[in-house]
């Protein structure tokens, strides 16, 4: 089974947030609305985090697009009391929305704060409901459950079914999440970290490669390449 991973080249990422919008459109994450967004409840699985340092005029800003790290040693699946969130055999950390009891210990345990909670049932104005992605894996989540980036697992299933339908073996390059496909700076690479010939595994060993909060030992599978 492939071990899916991603590499984001911060030199080519221009913080255009197209990944954020693509992720929302692909995975039906709900609109928070003005009053909820101010409270900090906007659900953006693939948020771009602005880190500002320095005094004027020597100011430096790092813009880090942050999908789920899909750690190999995830602190979130460890604390889940009912195995509602677990790492599947392909290394993707998924949430089972029918089993989650909403205790939110995983949201607190994740050092990257990538898990979001449905405070209210998902709301769209009636007209907007027509653009929802019909894939069953991304049916809008009910209130009271945690949801997170799943590396667009519905695309993986669709790619596998397509490969099977065409009668050829599924290859790692047939599948990429929505954020990788729409990255305007072509900054995101995606593939199987275990395959030594894949670009992601080569890039993950590049001298510019680093991972967020590497020292915590969660073994994140999203590598960043240093800017500049």
């Amino acid at each position, binding site marked *: 089974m492939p071990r899916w991973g991603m590499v984001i080249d911060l030199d080519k990422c221009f913080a255009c947030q197209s990944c954020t919008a693509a992720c929302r459109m692909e995975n039906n994450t709900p609109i928070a609305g003005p009053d909820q967004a101010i409270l900090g409840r906007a659900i953006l699985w693939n948020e771009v985090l602005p880190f500002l340092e320095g005094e004027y005029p020597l100011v430096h800003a790092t813009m880090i697009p942050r999908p789920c790290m899909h750690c190999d040693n995830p602190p979130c699946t460890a604390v889940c009391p009912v195995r509602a969130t677990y790492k599947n055999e392909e290394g993707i950390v998924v949430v089972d929305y029918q089993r989650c009891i909403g205790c939110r210990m995983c949201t607190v345990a994740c050092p990257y704060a990538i898990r979001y909670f449905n405070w209210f049932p998902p709301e769209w104005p009636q007209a907007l409901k027509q653009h929802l992605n019909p894939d069953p894996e991304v049916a809008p989540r009910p209130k009271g459950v945690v949801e997170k980036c799943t590396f667009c697992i519905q695309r993986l299933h669709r790619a596998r079914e397509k490969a099977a339908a065409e009668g050829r073996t599924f290859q790692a*390059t047939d599948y990429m999440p929505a954020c990788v496909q729409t990255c305007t700076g072509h900054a995101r690479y995606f593939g199987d970290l275990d395959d030594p010939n894949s670009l992601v595994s080569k890039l993950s060993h590049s001298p510019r490669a680093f991972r967020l909060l590497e020292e915590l030992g969660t073994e994140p599978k999203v590598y960043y390449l240093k800017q500049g």
Partner: protein
Amino acid sequence: MRRHRMFIIVSVLLLAATLALAFHPQTAEALPEYSAQTGEPCATCHLSPSGGGPRGPRGQAWVGSGKPGVVPDLVEALSLLGIQLDVDESQYQAPDQPAPEAQPLAVEPAQAGQIHQWLRNYDGN
């Protein structure tokens, strides 16, 4: 004292009852054989250098022409895609004799409206 012995018995029973989950080994997928066949990196045909997903014009043309051993270069790919480019390159080479002398400033005065009309119908969006 009696209660402790009972606890020990219960915990041993529990441990023995759990099954062992066998973990099967993982297999690595091979690189697609196309790039081995043509000797070209993924980025030649695919738009994303990591290969897979969308293909560029050269990729499109290569697939269109039944995946031959060599990937057509851009111009040939374009013609395969039905895009004719009748451009004679010589127009773009400069002759080596010196450029014409600058004409002294001798311009007839222009009517404002005439400039406006002229500027208005530019090509493009």
